[in-house]
């Protein structure tokens, strides 16, 4: 049975009241398996940071449920048990207004059972973190590195990284991705370790994530193992008469000059065989990159939302 590091069910978070109320998270069902590197993708204001804030107990759900290791992260004493096992890098990378050395020294006191000075030194070296620069003189990239060094050296069961690559140069980014894979995934004892990172930078997520969730407008559009997602999405360019317009596997259809383009989100082989059996000709059949899948899902979600709003109006 799969156990989950983070699990949400019908999670809703509303900000504001009355006519100014905004649903930042709108019925979110998220399942982050333990031992995975889970990339939460979404556009700006998709609800990623709000979801993470609720997972860290910094915000409380309006309704629905969020569990971290099966515990409520918003209520003591469960909250303390959760936080003992979680490393966190916030979106703005500001953990405390301290130099990196002071921050690391302070932070290590909170995790005496798991903290590793050796790992802290490794991260400092690999990311070239200036240890004694005053907080106000730190660049955004160095604030990011400082927060990352703290979170990684904690050797937690779960790393929650909100836009962890903000401000990093390509070399530091590459080092970070290596560090995450090399030093943050090996189980501690019999407990697997999970990395949950949010981003709208798809290329970096694609490099390391094995599970993906795509969010838009506070909802999850797609979730699952990255390999399964890649194999289930396909772009077919087809010519022929009486081509189908509805099918459970079709995500979108576009009419081109002399052909029809299908974006399929499940069972593309079976759909292709059906088309051929009905006399259609498949001109092109291409796998889709994560970037293309993301764009297609967001566009479809946007048009669906617009249709819904029109209907409502």
């Amino acid at each position, binding site marked *: 049975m799969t156990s989950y590091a983070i699990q949400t069910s019908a999670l809703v978070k509303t900000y504001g009241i009355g006519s100014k109320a905004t649903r930042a998270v709108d019925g979110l069902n998220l399942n982050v398996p333990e031992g995975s590197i889970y990339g939460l993708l979404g556009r700006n204001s998709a609800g990623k940071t709000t979801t993470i804030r609720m997972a860290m107990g910094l915000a409380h759900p309006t309704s629905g449920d969020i569990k971290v290791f099966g515990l409520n992260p918003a209520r003591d004493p469960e909250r303390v048990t959760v936080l003992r096992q979680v490393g966190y890098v916030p979106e703005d990378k500001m953990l405390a207004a301290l130099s990196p050395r002071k921050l690391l020294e302070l932070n290590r006191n909170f995790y*005496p059972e798991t903290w590793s*000075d050796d790992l802290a030194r490794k991260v400092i070296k690999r990311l070239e973190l200036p240890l004694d620069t005053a907080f106000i003189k730190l660049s955004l990239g160095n604030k990011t590195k400082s927060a990352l060094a703290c979170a990684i050296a904690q050797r937690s069961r779960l790393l929650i990284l909100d836009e962890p690559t903000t401000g990093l140069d390509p070399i530091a980014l590459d080092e970070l991705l290596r560090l995450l894979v090399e030093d943050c995934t090996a189980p501690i004892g019999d407990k697997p370790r999970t990395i949950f990172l949010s981003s709208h930078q798809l290329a970096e997520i694609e490099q390391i994530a094995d599970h993906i969730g795509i969010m838009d407008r506070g909802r999850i559009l797609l979730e699952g193992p990255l390999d399964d997602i890649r194999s289930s999405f396909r772009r077919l360019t087809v010519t022929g008469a009486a081509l189908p317009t509805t099918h459970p596997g079709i995500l979108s259809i576009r009419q081109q000059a002399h052909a029809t383009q299908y974006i399929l989100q499940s069972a593309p082989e079976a759909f292709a065989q059906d088309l051929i059996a009905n006399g259609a000709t498949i001109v092109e059949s291409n796998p889709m990159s994560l970037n293309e899948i993301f764009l297609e899902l967001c566009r479809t979600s946007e048009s669906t939302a617009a249709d819904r709003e029109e209907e409502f109006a």
Partner: protein
Amino acid sequence: MIASLGLSFLIFLFPLVAAGVWKIVSIQRTAAKAERDALPFIPAPQPGPASLGGLPPARRVFLMQHLKVAGYLYAMMAWTIAFILTLPLFTLGSGNSAKWFNHSAYFWYSFITGATHSTQFLSIMVLFSAIAVIMPMRFGPEARFYRTRPIPISFVFWTKVLSVLTAMIAGAATGIALAFAILVALEGPIWHNLPVIIPRILGPDDADVAQLYASLLVTSAPSIFLSIITTIALFFSAVLFLGTAPVLRVRSNAALPLLMVPAAFVPFAIDIISNHSNGGTPHFFRTLYIYLSLGPPPPLAYALIPIALAAICITCARLFTNHQEI
């Protein structure tokens, strides 16, 4: 008179500013040296005092940090109270001491008046201390840092609130004791040398002095000092209550500083109200055991009212923090 007050204020500020500048310079020097030396990350272990040995390391670190800050606040409060109470002793002669019939009476009057006036000044310190407690629990990197470390919210709350409140009350008590020690060292126990009736040498032109002296005779110094302590607790907890109240959370966190600014005008409001109450302490303030001017003290039992209100406000603030979002 203004020049004398200005000089007094400078004398008051000097040790505080000097200590602050010294601290900033020493921090900057240490940081610059560390940056130059580029030392590797070899943190020293942090053994806490033996008395805190039973606490988990995370809580011990948090507590130690706050006890350090409380130490500074304690020193500042003690200095402020001692300064306010003893200031008149060093500036006598600039006023109308010649009209007073008795040296001890005038010294005692000046000392006690300083104590009654201290409420307004102290309330500013208390308000800013309360805001300094609330802000790092609600806003900014510090709030988020501690809220995402494995420490119970209740521990964070009580550590912050009790360390600051205790430091202020203990600082006030120390300041009062220090001021008394200075008074006794300079003048002896002058409160024993006050004539119990108004001397006949006071003529019709000295009616104001006669009235002040009559008020002085019924003024209770212990009640004034108790009032300073209960007022500190009351103001502090009231601001804590306001700053953590859910009504502020519904809107924006940015609303908190804006709502706190009017609170800083409370001392001035107190001053205005007390000036329009014919010299005595207004009844409302007496009920809250706020002793603002010479005259008979409020009944001692009234001291329980601000203490009870403070306890209620702090308890509510504690409940509010459970639901606070950062």
